[in-house]
């Protein structure tokens, strides 16, 4: 009776995690969800006595550094991760990005937990005002936001990867520094959870970037690479100025810059590119590296000659069941 054919439209699709096109989506989803945490799990109040041992300048520096980190996390939670969702090539990638966006919001929220535990309302308000007025910090945000709002998915991923794997580190340096001096150690524990998350985010965005790169022409690949390196130079210049403004007063600027170079290289590696800064300027203070990965046991490094205590084990017959990790 009714000869009218229904209007053809693309059906709304439900995400099917039992049909995954890209295994990495599932692996990263599992990793991120198993790493889930909230600031309430860290006993920040144990740092109150330690906080009292810092000078006024050191306290102000710490609050400002954390406010700067809060701002970047806010950008990544509300704009960065969300802006990459329409670029997703699988529904699972979109789901992973929702997780990234939420965890960035958790990170941003965490700094407020630190503040409410350690600082006065007046100190907190002053720092947030500072973050809005600081030209270097605002420039950092502008440089990234510009590419988040532009049309190109590949360039957006470059900007996002640099934020996750490079731009946080002028800030992350300070809690690692305090931790290496046995100060604010619980705060450092919380920051390490953030640092761990950022590694997975940087890895994943870099991975998706490389997949995207495979689909464009040789000429476009070259153009994107030029873009990535020039953006890195641009960001580095701002980071350098930001670092000097914050850390000159405590004599740590040069030490922080080595940490920046080291992390810039890692950000580029996440995108599949070669390192930019040579070893002569990436010799990060060992105390900072140790604070970053405590108990990671350097003794096991055979080639570096530091493994004097190492004894080659006798090979035991390993049963297949032993490999059931």
């Amino acid at each position, binding site marked *: 009776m009714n000869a009218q054919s229904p209007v053809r439209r693309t059906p709304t699709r439900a995400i099917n995690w039992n049909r995954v096109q890209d295994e*990495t989506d599932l*692996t990263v989803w599992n*990793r991120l969800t*198993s*790493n889930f*945490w909230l600031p309430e799990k860290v006993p920040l109040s144990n740092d109150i006595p330690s906080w009292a041992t810092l000078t006024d300048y050191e306290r102000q520096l710490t609050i400002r550094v954390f406010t700067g980190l809060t701002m970047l996390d806010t950008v990544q939670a509300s704009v960065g991760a969300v802006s990459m969702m329409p670029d997703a090539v699988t529904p699972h990638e979109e789901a992973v990005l929702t997780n990234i966006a939420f965890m960035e919001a958790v990170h941003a929220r965490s700094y407020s937990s630190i503040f409410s535990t350690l600082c006065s309302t007046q100190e907190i308000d002053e720092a947030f005002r500072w973050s809005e007025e600081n030209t270097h910090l605002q420039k950092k945000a502008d440089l990234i936001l510009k590419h988040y709002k532009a049309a190109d998915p590949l360039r957006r991923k470059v900007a996002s990867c640099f934020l996750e794997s490079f731009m946080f580190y002028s800030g992350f340096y300070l809690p690692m520094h305090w931790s290496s001096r046995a100060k604010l150690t619980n705060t450092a524990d919380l920051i*390490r*959870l953030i*640092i*761990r998350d*950022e*590694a997975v985010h940087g*890895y994943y965005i*870099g*991975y998706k970037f*490389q*997949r995207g790169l495979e689909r464009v022409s040789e000429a476009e690949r070259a153009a994107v690479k030029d873009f990535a390196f020039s953006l890195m130079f641009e960001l580095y210049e701002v980071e350098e100025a930001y670092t000097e403004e914050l850390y000159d007063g405590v004599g740590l600027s040069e030490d922080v810059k080595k940490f920046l170079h080291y992390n810039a*290289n*890692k950000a580029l*590696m*996440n995108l*599949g590119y*070669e*390192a930019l800064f*040579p*070893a002569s300027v*990436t010799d990060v203070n060992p105390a900072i*590296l140790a604070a*970053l*990965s*405590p*108990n*990671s*046991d350097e003794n*096991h*490094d*055979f*080639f*570096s000659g530091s*493994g004097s205590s*190492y004894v*080659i*084990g*006798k*090979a*035991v017959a*390993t049963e*297949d069941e*032993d*490999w059931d*990790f």
Partner: protein
Amino acid sequence: MAGLVYYSSGSGNTQRFVDRLGLPATRILGETRVTEPYVLITPSYSDGLGNGAVAKPVIRFLNDPANRCLLRGVIASGNRNFGEYFAHAGKIIAAKCGVPVLYRFELSGTDEDVARVRQGLETFWTRQRSIAP
């Protein structure tokens, strides 16, 4: 110099490291079988508790007793951001197979890492041959 076997995932970090090493190497893909002593280069993937550090294809490869008994050492990559579980796969494989962790590097490694591993492997194999029965 004896063999080099490696695993690299979609990020391609280990592949890029091995390319720069410029030594003959076998990539673990599907059913991989080796016939001479080798050093394994593998990335690490552990979660916040150190679980799941060794990639499944590496587990499958080492589950083969013939492959496992030829393993002489492991080089693990990772990211220091994972704290105490940086390059954790190396430690696990070393403990399970009774071989040393020879070296650890981050992501696709720096030029210094490449040089150290090249040099280290040469010395290692020379020493291995001198103590081999």
